[in-house]
């Protein structure tokens, strides 16, 4: 089956260009992406870009959508179509994409819940001349990639925790790391954390699935029973870390002697960092750039100009850089 896919991709003439672009993806700058897309509206052509996220109910995704819409409005020739896929419901996603293929949109940007299941749709879309870009997850033979680097995210927040432990002379630190094992593509968010912790003598005493506030609270509350001397909690998402922060407060643990860090740069996470206290860091995606990249990379793919593969940078949001923190928070001001 895999060979068939590869053969088909070669027949479509996709592979060579795709791999060449993918090899340089780490060097692509946001400015390059913007500059290439800026000329898309010349000549009066209009475009329809469809974007499917697997958990559209999550607040940060709504913000990313808002920035994609804003970029489309800035350019003036692009309409962004959104779907209603929620809770990683593959059937909903497939139905939405089928609808977009029928609509004959110019490009589809999709966070593939199950890449294998979407391969037939990708082939159908590409055969029809629709560009297929993936968001976060990768698929063979895609025309573009709107990515952010989960490994970088994990590394940023883990390094911040290591630096905190060193600066505060915390020896034999104990950590809780939350995971989301049903979504393996996100694994670097926690595997990089555990790797860096192991290299720096930090013991991970518990690894448990938690991605939202309720589960973050439940897991942290329980682990604090077993390990009241816990020093560090890293959430695979800010929402989980925010729940863990609440557990610290409810349990009466000394937050001043703890490090809580999250990932994504959600409004609640950034606000918690801004408030000071135990929540000291968030590996924050520049969601304004990410939203714009959905539109720009799709346009570049449609117009066959480079780059159509790029990562959106992730940065460390902490009180140490208040200006950046303020800028990230300002992204949420409607």
């Amino acid at each position: 089956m895999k060979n068939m896919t590869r053969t088909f991709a070669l027949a479509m003439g996709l592979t060579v260009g795709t791999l060449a672009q993918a090899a340089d993806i780490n060097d692509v700058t946001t400015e390059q992406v913007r500059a290439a897309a800026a000329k898309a509206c010349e000549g009066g052509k209009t475009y329809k870009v469809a974007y499917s996220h697997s958990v559209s109910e999550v607040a940060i995704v709504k913000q990313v959508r808002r920035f994609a819409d804003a970029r489309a409005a800035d350019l003036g020739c692009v309409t962004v179509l959104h779907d209603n896929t929620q809770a990683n419901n593959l059937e909903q996603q497939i139905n939405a994409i089928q609808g977009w293929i029928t609509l004959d949109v110019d490009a589809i940007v999709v966070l593939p819940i199950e890449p294998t299941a979407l391969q037939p749709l990708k082939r159908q879309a590409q055969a029809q001349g629709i560009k297929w870009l993936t968001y976060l997850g990768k698929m063979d033979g895609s025309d573009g990639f709107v990515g952010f680097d989960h490994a970088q995210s994990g590394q940023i927040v883990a390094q911040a925790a290591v630096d905190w432990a060193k600066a505060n002379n915390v020896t034999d630190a104990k950590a809780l790391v939350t995971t989301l094992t049903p979504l393996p593509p996100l694994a670097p968010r926690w595997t990089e954390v555990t790797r860096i912790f192991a290299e720096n003598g930090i013991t991970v005493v518990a690894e448990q699935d938690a991605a939202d506030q309720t589960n973050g609270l439940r897991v942290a509350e329980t682990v604090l029973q077993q390990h009241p001397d816990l020093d560090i909690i890293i959430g695979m998402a800010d929402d989980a870390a925010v729940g863990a922060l609440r557990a610290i407060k409810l349990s009466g643990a000394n937050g001043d002697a703890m490090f809580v860090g999250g990932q994504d740069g959600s409004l609640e996470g950034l606000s918690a960092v801004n408030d000071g206290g135990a929540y000291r860091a968030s590996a924050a995606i520049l969601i304004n750039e990410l939203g714009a990249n959905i539109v720009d990379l799709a346009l570049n793919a449609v117009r066959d100009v480079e780059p159509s593969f790029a990562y959106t940078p992730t940065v460390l949001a902490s009180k140490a850089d208040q200006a950046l923190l303020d800028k990230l928070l300002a992204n949420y001001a409607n």
Partner: protein
Amino acid sequence: MTDTGMTRGAAAAPETPKNRDWFELSVAAALPVAIAALAVFFYLNAPVFMTANNWISISVQVSALMTISIPFAMLLMAGKIDLSVGSTLALCGVVAGLSFEPLGIPGAVLLTLAVGTGVGLINGLLVASLGMSPIIVTLGTLTLIRGLAQWLAPNPIFGFPEEFLVIGYERVLGLPILTWIMMAVIALGAAVMALLPIGPQIVALGVNQRAAFLVGLRVKAIGIALYAGTGFFVAVAALMSISRINSAPAGTLGVGVELSVLTAVLLGGIPFAGGKGSVIRVVLGVWLLGMLANGLILMNVPTELSLMTTGLVLVVAAALDVLRSRRS
């Protein structure tokens, strides 16, 4: 032929009242025994499990689930079901979060309770009054209400008044307020089922709705009241939840709660078709789930294994239920 012989042999074995008593007793004791066995197992693997603090922690963790499970169980005993409880929880959380500022805490709480009751009332009218399928109606409201919650709060709502948040952490007479609320709901549920005339009427509805109607029971009114009551207690649970997490994320709050509640209630021995059940056994079912989640985290068991264990417990409970049904 041998099979026939064996079957005959088995069939010929007299089922004396004494045998039946033993069987009933052993099935009835299965849940408490399972809880005790699990407690010992977790204690041996994570001694902190058996501390008072940890048990109080479990009571807080299951408090919202319990608050929903008791009225839900009564609904199921009456042969009805409400699959929209998770979404209603989210909507109530969002309504409370949005109304603290304009209405103050008492106003927000009252509005939230009214919204929860209202959602239950709508479900009740559609199911009990118009005779629509409870599964289809509440599946519809599950989606509708989740959408409404997300529409009302596209951005996360967080940072509630401290006077409200005390519900989530303050203790009275050594126990968290949430635990007290949960115990009050249990006591209320047990009292309704055991002491009030409506208790047996609820069960009668589940046994045979037509027969219940013919003997003069107010079938529609009871059905509507049960749905409205469930909605009310879901609103209570929403207030309990958001006071704990200090946040009301419309997209994720209460996701999957309907399954957890259903699992707990079925574990408690209430058949899906209704017609019988006990509030106390439902309490044990919820507690078993809470203990499982807590103990597995304390042991740092990987998620996949946790899921398998929880699933296995449910299958065993279902098997016990089938055994009991066949014998009766």
